[in-house]
């Protein structure tokens, strides 16, 4: 190693030094708990049974994979994420297309459409549970009354679907904003060239607009999915995961196991499995967006 590079290494550390507190803090609040979780996951430990602390190796993991409820909850998580992301992306695309044309009061309409994204998740979930879906005084049943719908209990009949409705309501504006940004960066002359080349509105959308929007939609889907993995508030407020675990997702089920069942060891093992699966899926998804945006940069 030459003298020059040692010097620049020292210089490098001096430049990085102001960032170190933040790095230490991040390690302290994310990596240390994770390592602790891994450690707990190899023990059988129930808080309400004093003296239950015992090293069990990978037994908790075996239990997790044999647990049919865990499998059901994992499936719920997938349905919740995929369903919410796809439906909100479609709705967002539709709204973005409508907002991309000029009309009177467009600014007001745009602001109103964005508000669901700005409302606290817990407050939004409470609104859907009570003001909208309540069997007796909910707006949904009030509106559907003329069609012969009585005091239908939406939340208890379709727990997962009603949670999804709340999440779609919140995530549609996010998708809409991303896609709208994509639409507004669409070069006007390319569309004009398409019109002169004989393309009607549908062909223009399919052949030119949609390929241009692809990377914006991909970005929305991946970011949306990453946020939706952690959904907790909506489930806690609307259904508490019930009935049974019908509307619970992984974070909620782990919470139940750890803080209602006090099965720290099992909950820790579930947490580790969830984190590992999330990392794998997120990496694949992020690679997809980076590829798509890098490719697009060349085109720009």
């Amino acid at each position, binding site marked *: 190693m030459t003298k020059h590079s040692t010097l620049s290494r020292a210089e490098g550390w001096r430049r990085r030094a102001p960032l170190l507190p933040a790095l230490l803090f991040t390690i302290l609040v994310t990596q240390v708990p994770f390592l602790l979780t891994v450690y707990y996951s190899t023990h059988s430990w129930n808080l309400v049974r004093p003296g239950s602390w015992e090293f069990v190796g990978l037994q908790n993991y075996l239990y997790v994979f044999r647990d049919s409820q865990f499998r059901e909850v994992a499936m719920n998580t997938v349905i919740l994420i995929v369903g919410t992301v796809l439906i909100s992306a479609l709705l967002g695309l539709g709204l973005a297309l409508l907002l991309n044309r000029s009309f009177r009061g467009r600014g007001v309409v745009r602001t109103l459409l964005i508000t669901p994204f700005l409302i606290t998740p817990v407050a939004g979930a409470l609104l859907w549970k009570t003001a909208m879906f309540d069997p007796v005084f909910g707006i949904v049943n009030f509106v559907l009354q003329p069609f012969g719908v009585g005091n239908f209990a939406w939340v208890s009949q379709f727990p997962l679907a009603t949670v999804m409705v709340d999440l779609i309501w919140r995530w549609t504006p996010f998708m809409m904003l991303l896609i709208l940004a994509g639409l507004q960066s669409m*070069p006007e*002359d390319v569309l*004009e060239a398409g019109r*002169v080349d004989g393309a009607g509105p549908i*062909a223009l959308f399919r052949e030119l607009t949609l*390929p241009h929007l692809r990377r914006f939609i991909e970005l929305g889907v991946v970011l949306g999915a990453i946020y939706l993995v952690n959904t907790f508030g909506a489930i806690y407020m609307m259904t508490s995961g019930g009935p049974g675990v019908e509307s619970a997702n992984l974070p909620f089920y782990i919470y139940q196991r750890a803080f209602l069942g006090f099965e720290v060891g099992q909950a820790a093992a579930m947490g580790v499995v969830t984190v590992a699966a999330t990392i794998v899926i997120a990496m694949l998804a992020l690679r997809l967006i980076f590829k798509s945006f890098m490719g697009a940069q060349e085109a720009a």
Partner: protein
Amino acid sequence: MATIAYQTASCLYEGAANPAVDRLTLEVDDGEFIVLVGPSGSGKSTALRMLAGLEDIDEGNITINGKDMVGVPSKDRDIAMVFQNYALYPSMTVAENMGFALKMRGVPAGERRRQVEQAAELLDLSDFLDRKPAKLSGGQRQRVAMGRAIVREPQVFCMDEPLSNLDAKLRVQTRTQIAALQRRLGTTTVYVTHDQVEAMTMGDRVAVLKDGKLQQFAAPTELYDAPVNAFVAGFIGSPAMNLVPALVTSEGVQLGESTLPLERDRLAALHRQELSSVTVGLRPEQLEVVPAGQGIDVRIDLVEELGSESYVHAHLVDDRGGASTRLVARSHRRAPGRLGETIGLRHGAGSVHVFHPDTGARIDGEEMSARVGTGV
């Protein structure tokens, strides 16, 4: 193959005080290459976009082959357009770009490929058919845009400053290629440019626009030799024609100390209009550099050496009032004078152009006006 006619066609942008294109009337013959030229904001691009169906025709109409185009969408007009920034479809390959119009028309894939390959060969693009536009150079993109237009064999080509994004050398080269291609295909072409050299070299006829109004529509040489007004005179030709105010005397017009004689019937026309001063137009090549005292005395401000010739920029020496009168003269000799030196300029070959001092309209004698016609 098509004829085009603009009939008092106007385009009004919302909120604008004056129409972008104001009662434009133009008749384009079948197979003709016409150029719309003018400074920015003259409405030339708008006029073209009205033909392409990208702007509304608010008044009057435009016909292609006698068929009224008001309200007809772009896709049903059978025209091809080359855009200034090419507007290639970024997600498609060169071949897909060129074949897009055929695909929209429902031409089967095999036939499409054959026609695209044919056009690609013509434009030297055969090696790039599978590339995306992002991987092409500016000149190649320009050729793809041309290819996209010619593949479909449209009735009309519309070209909106297609050369303005190329470097100077490539521009000259592509200019001749486009003109040759158009002669070969014989497709009626409307070409928009702000570059008067392109207009002069490419067009069968050139329409000069200003503030949305047609100034003159004529063959390039006629625009050069007999501009209908001071604007056309100043716009066509490089360096621009010298347009200087001058007093009318009994023999001609006075420029500096010397008098440029005018024909009798032109003088008569000036007297009929009771003008005491006019705008005189002299092309740089109509002024010869002579020793001081033998012509109009001027002082040299700048000499531009082009190698084959040089341009002398100078101002009148005896200029008494206000803005000094500037003149540009072409000299075949190198270094006809030095900066600050006083030389003489003499009116050489060719007739002096005379324009009305206020309206800028050309003033001709009776004999001349009969020969040139009225233009607009």
